[in-house]
């Protein structure tokens, strides 16, 4: 490969790669590794430092450093995979730098996603938790399948529209808590608690907290702690949402019961 790639261009592309990777939920060590890999393939000694909130890219022995601000995002693992494939192709020389730049811009803009029905079906499948098999009744698990759909829809539809963080998770919890409590009050469900725990499975940040401990063990302490605190607050807002939802259903049924 020739030396025609300018330093600025390379740093800009590397910053973009790192940003997409971080917001799509890759681990910090993978982000740093991928960026430095691309740099080495372009014959520059790039060094990259990634934390979960910011990303620094620079060339060693130079004064220039590029700073990219990042905000915590949701999982979008397909983007991580595409970037990974592209960087591997670039390193082995299958594509040149201009093409890499173009594809990365495309990946950044493109909305790579499963269709809504597929995602909703996925969330419904997750809502039947193996943890509760033979502990909850089969009818309750069947109900959780549908309650989970509504909870996931509430969280997923509200998150692009509401800018305040954590409200979307709270709304999901609210929906699940309300529906489960209503079902129990109507006598359809036997145990609202089991339905709630099961139907919340797509929303709770369990994977995030496990990944945060993996990062801490990997000595990426800052990123790990940020992820863990974020997960804790998401769980807190879900918990508060469920308490509010169940409380609201209690009030409604109290009023109806008093009126009858």
């Amino acid at each position: 490969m020739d030396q025609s790639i300018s330093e600025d261009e390379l740093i800009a592309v590397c910053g973009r790669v790192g940003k997409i990777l971080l917001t799509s939920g890759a681990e910090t060590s993978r982000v740093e590794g991928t960026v430095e890999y691309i740099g080495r393939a372009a014959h520059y000694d790039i060094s990259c430092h990634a934390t979960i909130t910011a990303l620094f890219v620079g060339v060693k022995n130079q004064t220039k450093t590029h700073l990219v601000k990042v905000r915590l995002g949701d999982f979008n693992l397909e983007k991580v995979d595409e970037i990974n494939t592209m960087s591997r192709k670039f390193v082995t020389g299958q594509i040149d730098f201009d093409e890499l730049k173009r594809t990365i811009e495309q990946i950044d803009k493109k909305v790579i996603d499963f269709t809504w029905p597929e995602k909703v079906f996925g969330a419904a499948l997750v809502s039947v938790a193996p943890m509760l098999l033979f502990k909850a009744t089969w009818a309750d698990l069947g109900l959780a399948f549908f309650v989970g759909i509504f909870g996931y829809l509430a969280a997923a539809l509200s998150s692009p529209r509401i800018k305040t963080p954590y409200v979307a998770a709270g709304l999901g919890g609210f929906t699940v808590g309300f529906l489960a409590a209503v079902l129990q009050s109507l006598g359809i469900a036997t145990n609202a608690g089991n339905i709630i725990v099961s139907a919340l499975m797509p929303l709770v940040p369990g994977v995030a907290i496990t990944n945060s401990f993996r990062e801490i063990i990997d000595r990426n302490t800052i990123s790990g702690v940020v992820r863990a605190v974020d997960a804790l607050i998401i769980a807190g807002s879900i918990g508060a949402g469920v308490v509010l939802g169940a409380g609201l259903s209690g009030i409604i049924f109290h009023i109806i019961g008093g009126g009858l």
Partner: protein
Amino acid sequence: MKVLIELIVSFASTVGFGLVTNVPRRSLLPAGITGSLAWVAYYLVLQVDNGLILPNFTAAIVIGILGNISAVMFRVPVNMIYVPSLVSLVPGGILYLGMRSFTLGNEMRTGQYMFNALTIAIALAVGFVVAEVIFYRIKPILLRTLDKQKEN
């Protein structure tokens, strides 16, 4: 029979979470298999040892080894397998229960749930580390067999 049901439900769970987190399509099947086998391992160990650490640790080792092997075989980053297969094991439900007790002002139970969630998360994370150490021993053998297959 029970094990079979557990296997099917956890497979569905894993594939479902794969759809939610948007993994590439080619990693859905290996992730599903990894997730369900790890859950069965968890379930079987749970019959012998009724604690939190050993079952989760075993499951994490299963995910770690199978996940790394399928990452090499299907050419996907290993996180694409880890994230969906973890969904039935992770302490998400317990974390929620803990924060709900916190909202309701129940200190004792909050502490208990949070402690359990922490234990599970650390058991899983340490399991991954151990699995990766084991995998680095297996990797050369795996690569050699894959090369042989390509030649044939």
